[in-house]
């Protein structure tokens, strides 16, 4: 079952307080999203650790109900 973009944003923000989250529905099917997450919590962390923090916030949904989420993480806006 697909997830709503708002639910994804809420979960990420709950898991990473203060994060800025932007979501794009890539295919318009509620199943393929791209997310950009900006948080100072990423400072000093590797890309893998940054993505794992987002996956952690999604609590096991990634790869399950959430099929495709193209993820971009950064500590601050470029």
């Amino acid at each position, binding site marked *: 079952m697909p997830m709503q973009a708002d639910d994804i944003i809420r979960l990420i923000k709950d898991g990473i307080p203060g994060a800025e989250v932007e979501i794009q529905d890539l295919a318009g099917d509620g199943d393929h999203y791209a997310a950009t997450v900006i948080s100072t919590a990423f400072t000093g962390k590797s*890309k893998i650790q940054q*993505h*794992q923090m987002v*996956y952690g916030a999604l609590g096991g949904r990634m790869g399950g109900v959430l099929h495709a989420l193209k993820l971009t993480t950064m500590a601050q806006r470029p």
Partner: protein
Amino acid sequence: MSEPEVFERIRDEIGKNDVLLFMKGTPVFPQCGFSAATVDALSQLGVKFHGINILVDPELREGIKQFSQWPTIPQLYVKGEFVGGCDIVREMFETGELEQLFKEKGVALAEAA
């Protein structure tokens, strides 16, 4: 609790292959856009890699996610180290970091045509 038996197989594969991609489908016929994009990045750099099709191996498919603490496929390993999934590999490819990583690790790249 002892670790899953499949971890032993995963370590063995990672040890045997300098550049290893756990993927959906095969390097010639990827069966998922994310796997295809990752294969494309490696191919453009001219890196020789071994692809393991997790679609034909359910034990490995679940095992690799636990092993890497990473929920999705594809997953790229270089010289025993987990590099990341499709998004990280694509981003590193675009910034030149991926090529840098292979050079640092002593992985041969084909000369650009």
